[in-house]
């Protein structure tokens, strides 16, 4: 079968070899043209749904967001747009709340991503040993992934409660006083980071594990022949081999942390949640956007926030790229 030369496109179904002239020459030409058209057009037809859906519900709105950001649009009258130029942008840039949201998004992003990926790396290393019931362990650490943001945030909200919270109760055994986790700037950011870490560590662990198992074992054999300890092998063989994967998880986690919404919204719930705490102490950019658009009903500034997020994202991408280039240069 593998040796058959590709004869497709020449009308040929099997019986045609026995019956030399199954149809008129005109029909044949028409059929072969149909075949060729089928071959040319099919791939585009198959990928079209993705680009249509993305164009209609992703790209077009993304551009349109920029247009809305230059207008006053209220939730109460969606079809009335009034030109305000860059008014929305200058408005949000002058608000302390915006900069609080930027810094919270950044802080929570860092204190959730860094420990998460480090723990995931260590866990993947453990899971890479010969283990009893390895599938069981993998499934257990992935279970939080099956939990929704809403459920996770609500349970952890109970854990982090000031009075009667599980965490304060446990810390009480160690002589710690009651901490009001939700009211503090750092403590509330930590609480949100914990929810993120809980949900995503297992996921990243499995991604690292997959990458580790693709590392050729001769590299380790060579290293141990050279007398490298296990730690040295981990540092000098595993980590370099995993570099692309690590970079990838950093990018994906960064984008994920730009979007934090459910965790802060439901940490307290109610009116406090909708503005990221009484003093916006845990307000993220998504909450800020939601508060403007869906709580206060001003869609113009909400769209401006969306574009500010885009700019931040591009900035982070540029920094990532620069760091990546720097790392590659120093490695070479």
């Amino acid at each position, binding site marked *: 079968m593998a040796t*058959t030369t590709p004869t497709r496109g020449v009308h040929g179904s099997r019986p045609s070899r026995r019956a030399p002239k199954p149809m008129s020459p005109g029909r044949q030409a028409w059929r072969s043209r149909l075949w060729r058209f089928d071959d040319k057009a*099919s*791939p585009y037809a198959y990928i079209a749904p993705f680009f249509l859906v993305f164009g209609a519900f992703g790209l077009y709105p993304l551009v349109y967001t920029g247009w809305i950001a230059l207008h006053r649009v209220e939730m109460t009258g969606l079809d009335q747009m009034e030109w305000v130029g860059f008014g929305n942008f200058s408005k949000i840039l002058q608000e302390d709340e915006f900069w609080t949201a930027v810094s919270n998004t950044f802080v929570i992003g860092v204190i959730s991503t860094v420990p998460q990926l480090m723990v995931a790396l260590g866990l993947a290393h453990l899971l890479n040993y010969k283990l009893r019931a390895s*599938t069981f362990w993998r499934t257990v650490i992935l279970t939080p992934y099956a939990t929704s943001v809403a459920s996770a945030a609500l349970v952890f909200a109970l854990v982090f409660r000031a009075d009667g*919270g599980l965490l304060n109760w446990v810390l009480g055994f160690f002589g710690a006083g009651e901490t009001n986790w939700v009211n503090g700037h750092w403590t509330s950011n930590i609480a949100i980071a914990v929810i993120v870490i809980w949900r995503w560590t297992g996921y990243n662990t499995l991604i690292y594990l997959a990458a580790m198992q693709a590392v050729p074992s001769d590299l380790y054999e060579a290293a141990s022949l050279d007398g490298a300890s*296990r730690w040295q092998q981990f540092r000098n063989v595993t980590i370099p081999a995993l570099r692309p994967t690590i970079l990838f998880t950093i990018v994906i986690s960064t984008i994920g942390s730009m979007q934090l919404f459910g965790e802060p919204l439901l940490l307290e719930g109610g009116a406090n949640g909708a503005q990221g705490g009484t003093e916006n102490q845990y307000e993220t950019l998504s909450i800020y956007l939601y508060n403007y658009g869906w709580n206060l009903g001003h869609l113009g500034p909400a769209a401006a926030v969306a574009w500010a997020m885009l700019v931040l994202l591009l900035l982070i991408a540029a920094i990532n790229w620069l760091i990546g280039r720097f790392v590659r240069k120093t490695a070479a």
Partner: protein
Amino acid sequence: MTTTSPITAPDHRRVSKAAVRHEPPRRRRFKPGAGRQHHAGPFAYFALVVVGLGSLFPLYWTLVAASRTQQEVLDTTPPLFPGGNLFNNLEAAWEQASLGKAILNTFIVSSSITLATLFFCTLAGYAFAKMRFKGRNMLMTMVIATLTIPPQLSVVPLFMMMSDIGWGGQLESVIFPTLVSAFGVFFMRQYLIEALPYELIEAGKVDGANNLRVVWSIVLPVARPAMMVLGMLTFVQAWNDFFWPYLALNQQNPTLQVALGQLSASYVPDQSIVMAGALISTLPLLVVFVIFGKQIVGGIMSGAVKG
């Protein structure tokens, strides 16, 4: 399997079966390497037990809190074992948050998104993996690039569009934007590159099959294992989606996550009832996860992309 040398133990059965039935080649990615040579020591097991408990405890505590009263949950010594108030709380949650409708809605949304994603992503994945056409690489790069665009950037106009075409607050507004996923296209492409030999497609064409026929009788059967995994991942994600549904839907017509968010946000909430709601929204997925956990784990490890 890897230790048997071909000389001492030729496995004719496996070879011939694969050759005849054109089974996808066994994936080589999970070969033993790295730390696999060593057995895990007691420290490894200890660490895994600690992490495992950390993973599972919040879920267990959801059950505990859902089966107590608000007062017990918020007591200065929180309860560590389930109590007897579960059914009262479930009933209260059911009434306060229209959970019946929410479950139905979530099911409709998740299954239609999953079915559409499977269909469209398999088609697109096949085209990108095995068909030659102009602009293929550039278009695939675009698909991957869309993974990096957060939904936040387009929700404002999306909301206005949906209300324009009369889908405001309707399930359509949640279903249609997620009918296909870049992750799905990528996932199916990666699988089909390895699993689908060109000879098989050629053979079908020689037999006079047009492209759709090839997809139907050759690509789909080969792709089935990957479709199973993608289906489960998509279902989990659609079931748990929060941000856009929370903005697009309302209290009268919510999905489970939206109902749960509103249950905790709308009035002074009773924590044990909220936890009962959380339990209802999580339990179906946990059951799916316990049954198909192995496949989902394998899927994430082979896809290695966050969707």
